[in-house]
């Protein structure tokens, strides 16, 4: 085998090989996709400063599974490719650093089952599953806060999919502005992609929304109602928050046929409409205990077809 400068010398010592074999455990990490946000804007943190924040809507029908096989050589090999999975590769390196294994490399395999080009947050999903896989390979358990910090470092801005409980998350700084100590209430969602050609926003290139003072203030009532909605586990309140957040952000990343979608939601008796604030998916939110649920969802799918959105998916969040 050809030797490159910087690679580890061949291992001869039997004890060393043995140690390596013991340590070589395949780490596995998974992470569900998300479907944009229920709320995104600017919020007051505990110090009274204003910071960008969001509340992620998970999309549990799609996942990334990452597998990481550590090797004593410092190179990192990524499948499908390092170019396609640039942020995940960076996340693997950062996790190795964080766990004080700077010198190690490995093989990182990523399997993402979400449909390509839908902007279902596949980069954070890849990044989080990668961090989990690398940590798992060394039997290290990282807290959600630690995962969040590494994720933000790896991709500049990340959603809050690593948290099990609902949180208001500072996506560019990687900390929780407010934790709600419980999951989102159960919600049924009919989702669709408003722009199949949209590949998601490159956070590095797209300037963040520039909110005026009154837009920033308008996020405060939404945050208040969100908190009440999570506390009461009431999807109706969450739906109102999501709809208004979508409305306030429409001018920054417009969704096609937005007014029609809002009207559709109202007419069929959905609880609200949510959007991906840096993607192209939109979801119509329903209350799962509504006894007209199936009929309403069917109506939504038919009406969306009329609006020019032929393909819908259905998913559910929250415990039943």
């Amino acid at each position, binding site marked *: 085998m050809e030797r490159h400068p910087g690679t580890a010398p061949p291992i001869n010592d039997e004890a060393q090989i043995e140690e390596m074999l013991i340590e070589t455990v395949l780490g596995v990490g998974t992470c569900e996709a998300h479907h944009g946000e229920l709320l995104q804007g600017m919020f007051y943190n505990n110090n009274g400063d204003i910071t960008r924040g969001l509340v992620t809507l998970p999309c549990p029908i799609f996942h990334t599974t990452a597998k990481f096989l550590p090797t004593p050589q410092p190179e990192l090999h990524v499948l499908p490719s390092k170019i396609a999975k640039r942020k995940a590769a960076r996340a693997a390196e950062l996790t190795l650093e964080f766990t004080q294994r700077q010198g190690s490399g490995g093989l990182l395999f990523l399997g993402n089952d979400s449909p390509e080009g839908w902007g279902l947050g596949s980069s954070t999903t890849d990044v989080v599953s990668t961090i989990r896989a690398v940590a798992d390979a060394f039997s290290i358990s990282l807290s959600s806060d630690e995962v969040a910090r590494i994720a933000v470092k790896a991709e500049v801005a990340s959603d809050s999919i690593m948290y099990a409980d609902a949180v208001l998350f500072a996506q560019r700084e990687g900390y929780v502005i407010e934790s709600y100590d419980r999951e989102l209430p159960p919600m049924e969602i009919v989702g669709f992609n408003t722009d199949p050609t949209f590949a998601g926003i490159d956070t590095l290139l797209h300037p963040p929304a520039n909110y005026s003072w009154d837009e920033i203030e308008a996020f405060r009532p939404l945050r208040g*109602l969100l908190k009440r909605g999570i506390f009461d586990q009431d999807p109706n309140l969450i739906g109102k928050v999501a709809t208004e957040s979508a409305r306030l952000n429409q001018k920054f990343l417009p969704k096609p046929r937005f007014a029609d979608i809002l009207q559709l939601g109202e007419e069929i008796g959905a609880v609200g409409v949510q959007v991906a604030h840096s993607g192209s998916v939109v979801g119509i939110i329903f209350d799962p205990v509504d006894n007209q649920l199936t009929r309403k969802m069917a109506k939504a799918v038919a009406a969306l077809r009329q609006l020019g959105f032929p393909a819908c998916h259905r998913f559910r969040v929250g415990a039943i």
Partner: protein
Amino acid sequence: MVTRVVHNSPIEASLLPTFIRLAKNLVAATFGFMKLIPATFILEQAEKDERLKAGKIIETTSGPFGLALAIVAAQRNYSLTLLCPKGVDPAILEQMANLGAKVEVLLDQQECIDQIQARRSKDRELFWPSQYHNPQNSGSYAGVAEAILEAMGNVDCLIGAVGSGGSLCGTGKYLRLVGQDLRVVAVDAMGSVLFGKSSVPGRLPGMGNGVMPTTLEHRMVDEVHWVTSSEALCAARRLHKFHGMCMGTSSGAAFLASSWWASKNPDKTAVVFFPDHSSRLFTSLFCKETLQAADLWLDELPSEPKEISHPREESNRWSRLEWARRSLNSWELAREASE
């Protein structure tokens, strides 16, 4: 997880209301001193936009807003000049002066405004909060709407006394972002011009106005109540009697209107603003002799408002009008007056 916190200043501690249930479907949002909210917000925004670099502020006031500005300005070392029209309670002028504000008493509100304009044309760095025309007055109430929604979810009705209209219209606007059906009920002073009556001098401070502020958005308002000074005082004593709360006269007036509204709408939830304690503005609600001498004492309150169908309809007692989100112009007050 939310833990209890220690506030860094009495101002910070006053920026959010405490919610107190007065009846099954009526909740009071009580404030330590509500005007600290717009005063703080307007100054902070001016700091952010670098409109306060010179640190000099001027405002005209006859009461609470000037006092609130004086409190915030003192904490932040700003130089504050307050121009007050004649007739402002001397105890308030003393409080303003005690906080380091330069207080000047002028003839009337118009002279105060002329003076501000003259001084600002000479000194461009003089910052004028202008509570009656600054959208950041109403804009400052987002945190109040947040607190209401967090504590109660959506409510059906918001009731409050109006001076600039900032608190009622600001909070109402933010609440309606997530609940378009919210009913907004304004409580005005008899003899105030805010909802189309003609001006009568000698109103109690706080509630009502002798000039028309642009911060009052008439088209947000569903219903208006007018309350006389003696009724407001009596209602404030009733609030004390029933709930042990010693709030100001505008709280009293709002209590009167909101108790009536809540009893008429048992299936709806209402929030009413109590902006200030009685200690701040009036020597006492309970100085019976003084109040009797001024013809401001009442023993009993009417149980119902008098229903009127036009702002100019004569009435010298608590009255109610279905305003129906109309503009002020739509009532054709000028024509009405000339007929």
